[in-house]
C-alpha cells in the first residue's frame, strides 16, 4: 500500500475551546475513494484544514507523502475543492481558462514544459466542459462552476483530490453528474479522492465511508 496522507493521533481545539478532534488516525492510500460524513459542526472541514496545513494540531502528526505537513512543499500533489462555490463575486471579470491556469503551481510550471492551451483543454475535457473555456465565470451554472473548480484542482495533476461538500447547493441532475465524474476520475485516472459530503449517491459509490462524531472517527463502510 502506498500511503499518501496519514494522520497519527491528531487532536485539535480552537483557542480557548475543548478538543473538537481527539486522537484521530487516518490513512489515505493510492486509489482510495473515501467519504467523510458527520453531523454539522463535527469538525469535518477542520480535519481537511489540518491536512491542508492551514491549521496545526495541538497533538499528533499530519504526514503528507512521507513528510510532516509543516515541512511539506509539494502542495501541487494535493488538489482541493473548497466548500464555498460562492467565495467569489460571480461578476468577477475572469474567464474559465484564467481561473484554471491561476492555480498552476509555480514549481509545476518550472518542472514541466507547460503548454497552457493544451493543459487547460485537457482538464476541461476531463470535467466535460470543453466549450466553456472562454466563458466568464459569472455565466456558468452552479454545477458548471463546481466542475470548473475541480478542473482548477486538476491542472497540477494532483495525486489526491480533497473536496469539501462539492454537491451542496446543486440540483439533483448536477449532483449526479458530479458524482459520476468523481467516480470516473478515481477509476480511470487512479486519482485518490477524499471528500466531505452528505450526498447519498456519492456515499453509494464510495469505497470507504468514515463518520466523524464528537471528535472521534469511525469506519461505517469499507470494501477493501
Amino acid at each position, binding site marked *: 500500500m502506498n500511503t499518501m496522507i496519514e494522520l497519527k493521533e491528531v487532536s485539535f481545539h480552537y483557542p480557548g475551546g475543548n478538543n473538537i478532534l481527539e486522537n484521530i488516525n487516518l490513512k489515505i492510500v493510492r486509489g482510495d475513494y473515501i467519504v467523510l460524513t458527520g453531523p454539522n459542526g463535527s469538525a469535518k472541514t477542520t480535519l481537511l484544514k489540518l491536512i*491542508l496545513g*492551514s491549521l496545526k494540531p495541538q497533538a499528533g502528526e499530519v504526514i503528507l507523502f512521507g513528510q510532516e505537513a509543516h515541512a511539506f*512543499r509539494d*502542495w501541487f500533489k494535493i488538489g*482541493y475543492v*473548497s466548500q464555498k462555490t460562492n*467565495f*467569489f*463575486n460571480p*461578476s*468577477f*471579470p*475572469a*474567464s474559465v481558462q*484564467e*481561473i484554471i491556469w*491561476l*492555480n498552476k*503551481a*509555480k514549481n509545476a510550471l518550472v518542472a514541466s514544459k507547460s503548454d497552457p492551451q493544451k493543459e487547460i483543454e485537457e482538464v476541461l475535457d476531463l470535467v466535460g466542459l470543453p466549450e466553456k473555456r*472562454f466563458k*466568464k465565470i*459569472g*455565466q*456558468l*451554472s452552479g454545477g458548471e462552476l463546481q466542475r470548473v473548480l475541480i478542473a482548477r484542482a486538476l491542472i497540477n495533476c494532483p495525486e489526491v483530490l480533497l473536496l469539501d461538500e462539492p454537491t451542496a447547493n446543486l440540483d439533483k441532475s448536477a449532483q449526479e453528474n458530479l458524482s459520476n465524474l468523481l467516480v470516473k476520475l478515481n477509476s480511470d485516472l487512479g486519482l485518490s479522492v477524499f471528500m466531505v459530503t452528505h450526498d447519498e449517491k456519492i456515499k453509494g459509490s464510495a469505497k470507504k465511508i468514515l463518520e466523524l462524531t464528537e471528535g472521534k472517527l469511525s469506519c461505517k463502510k469499507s470494501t477493501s
Partner: protein
Amino acid sequence: MGIWIELFSFQFMQRALLAGTIVGILCPTVGVFLVLKRLSMVGDTIAHVSLAGVLGGLLLRLDPILAALITAVVTAFGIEKVRRVFCDYAELALAIFTSVGLGLAVILFNVVKSSDTSVQSLLFGSIVSVTGRDIWVIWILGLTVLTVVLKFYREFFYLTFDEDGASLAGINTKLFNYLLLLMTASIVAVGMPIIGALLISSLFVLPVAASLVVSHDFKSTLIIANMVSIFSVYTGIILSYFYDVAPGGAIIVVMVGIMILMYLVKSFVFNNLKKARAGEGEGDEREDCSGYS
C-alpha cells in the same frame, strides 16, 4: 495644425503629458486589484491622510513628495493592520483613517494657510506646474511599481480572486496585501500634487468601472482600464489648455463620460442581441449581468 504644434511645443505641456502618461497607467493597473478586492476607497483614504502629511511637512519644511510618501506608507500599513483587527468590518479601517486624515488636515490647513498659498493646489492638483524633478521621481517609482505588478501578476490576480485559495496555493497573502497597499500609497504620494488629493482616487476607480462594463476576462479588464485612463488623461490635459479649466477635473469628467458612453453602447448592443435571439427562438444562455448590477 499650427495650434497643435504650438500646444506640444510648450515645456509645461510636455511635462504634463509625461507625468500624465505614467500616472494614467499606474492608477488603473493597481486600481483593478483594489476595486475587485472591494477596496475602491483605499486611494481616497490614503490621499486624505497624506494631505495632512504634506501640510505637516510644509510646517516642518520637508519636501512635499517625501512628506506625502512617508505619511501614505504609514497609513497603508495602518489600514492593513486595522483591517485585520476588524476583519468582519473591513471597510471600517478606511472610515477610521479618512476621519483621522481629514481632521488633521483641517487643523493643519488653518495653520499653514497664512504662510503658504500652494496648499490650495494640493486639493485639486496642478498638472501644468510639474517640474523636471517631479517627472524623474514619478517615472522611477512608476517603472518600479509596473515591474512588481508584471513580475507578480499571477499572485496579485489570485489574491484578488480568492484569498483563501491563494494562501493554500502557497502565496504569502499577507505580504502581497501589504505590497499592494504600499504601491497604492506610493502612487498616491507622487500623484497627489499633480491630480489633487480630492481627485487622485478617481483615477484608481473610474477607468476600472468603465472597463468592467465591457470586459470579458481579467486581462481585458486591465487593458481596457489602461486605455480609458490614458485617453482620458490626454484629453483632459488638452481640454484644460484650450478651455482654461483644472486638468484634474477635466480628466475625471472625460472618464465619467466614457464610462456612461460604454454603458449606453453595451445596453444598446445587448438589447438588440436579446431581441435578435428571441426572434430566432434561442436564449438559453445565461445573461452576463456584470456591469449592470
